[in-house]
């Protein structure tokens, strides 16, 4: 049995990547039981699509980083099950998509590849059990500004100035984002995890979290190897809005050089100062 989706493509007609998003949607509908949501009609008359959105996994296909389809999904409060961006897919496959609005040979090849990958059944993998032990709850200091509350855990955490944290247990660290990130993004609708097994440098990218407002790159506080990701976040990214320090950790990293990483990390005292300044200067006007 093949997978099937409710497909919401950006269908941007004046850009190559947008036109490819449409071709991918058509290909999925042709090769599986997937159904297409026309973004233009959906915007003005969503009743037409409510049933398939409820019944099927929602796949959002953005052409480029303007993320029109994602923003539409966010406006409509949809639960996104999977998401791709055509320009990213092209880059990852080394395909140089050009200007033509009618897809040529290489564009169609890309469409085939992307559709096939989407329809492939995921291999059932048992995520390795984490051996490290992490507390479930922490004590927080709270900085309040208007209706917003910014928590910072008081003990045991390292932070970078990019509002990401690491909590170390033995040779492993859990990393995640802080309250400043989730408050700035507001309702988080999608989490792109890093790949298990890859190496990350300190300040390297550990996936992204995004809302209708923006995409935030998770900036790793530590260097090492990604040994686990928080699978729960893929189906429930809103956990990050509830509390980004506990259940909503992003990944576990096997540390390679914590001592050196620490040179560029802040403790509670240091980060709380940075956070207060940021909130006062930049948070939601």
């Amino acid at each position, binding site marked *: 049995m093949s997978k099937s989706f409710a497909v919401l493509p950006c269908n941007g007609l004046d*850009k190559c990547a947008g036109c490819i998003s449409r071709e991918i949607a058509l290909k999925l509908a042709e090769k599986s039981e997937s159904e297409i949501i026309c973004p233009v009609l959906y915007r003005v008359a969503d009743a037409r699509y409510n049933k398939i959105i409820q019944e099927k996994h929602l796949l959002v296909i953005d052409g*480029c*980083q*303007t993320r029109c389809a994602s923003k539409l999904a966010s406006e409509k409060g949809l639960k996104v099950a999977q998401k791709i961006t055509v*320009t990213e897919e092209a880059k990852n496959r080394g395909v140089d998509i050009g200007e033509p609005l009618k897809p040529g040979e290489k564009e169609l090849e890309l469409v085939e590849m992307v559709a096939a990958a989407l329809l492939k059944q995921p291999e059932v993998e048992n995520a390795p059990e984490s051996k490290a032990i992490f507390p479930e709850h922490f004590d927080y200091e709270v900085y309040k500004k208007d209706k917003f509350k910014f928590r910072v855990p008081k003990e045991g955490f390292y932070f*970078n*100035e*990019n509002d990401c944290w690491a909590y170390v247990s033995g040779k492993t660290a859990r990393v995640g984002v802080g309250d400043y990130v989730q408050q700035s993004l507001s309702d988080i609708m999608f989490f792109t995890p890093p790949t298990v097994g890859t190496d990350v*440098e*300190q*300040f*390297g990218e550990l996936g*992204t979290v995004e809302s209708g407002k*923006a*995409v*935030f*790159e998770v*900036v790793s506080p530590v260097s090492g190897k990604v040994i686990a990701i928080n699978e729960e976040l893929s189906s429930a990214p809103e956990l990050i809005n509830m509390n980004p320090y506990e259940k909503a950790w992003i990944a576990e990293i096997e540390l390679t050089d914590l001592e*050196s990483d620490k*040179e*560029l990390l*802040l403790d509670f005292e240091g980060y709380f100062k940075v956070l207060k300044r940021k909130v006062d*200067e*930049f948070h939601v006007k």
Partner: protein
Amino acid sequence: MSEMSEETFMGVPRDKIDWSPRIDYDKCNYCMECVEFCPHKVYEVRENEDKKLVVKNPDNCVVFCRACGKTCGVDALSFPDKGETTKKIKEIRKEM
């Protein structure tokens, strides 16, 4: 405004750290999404010039932040290598 910039990053004077967006003018379509996004006044719009968008205050850019790049539909923004930048910052700290 310079007084809004962070003066230091992890103890290193901000102006010693080369971290800010680079605009590829062959790709930029002046949609100004990045300008609207960035709260740090890194960019400046110059309506009457050929290059309608410039990086006016590179030192206002948050070190290791690439968020404006993720708003760019035409992928016209790039940033220095993170590993190299980290290495440099550590070197400067040692000299201090």
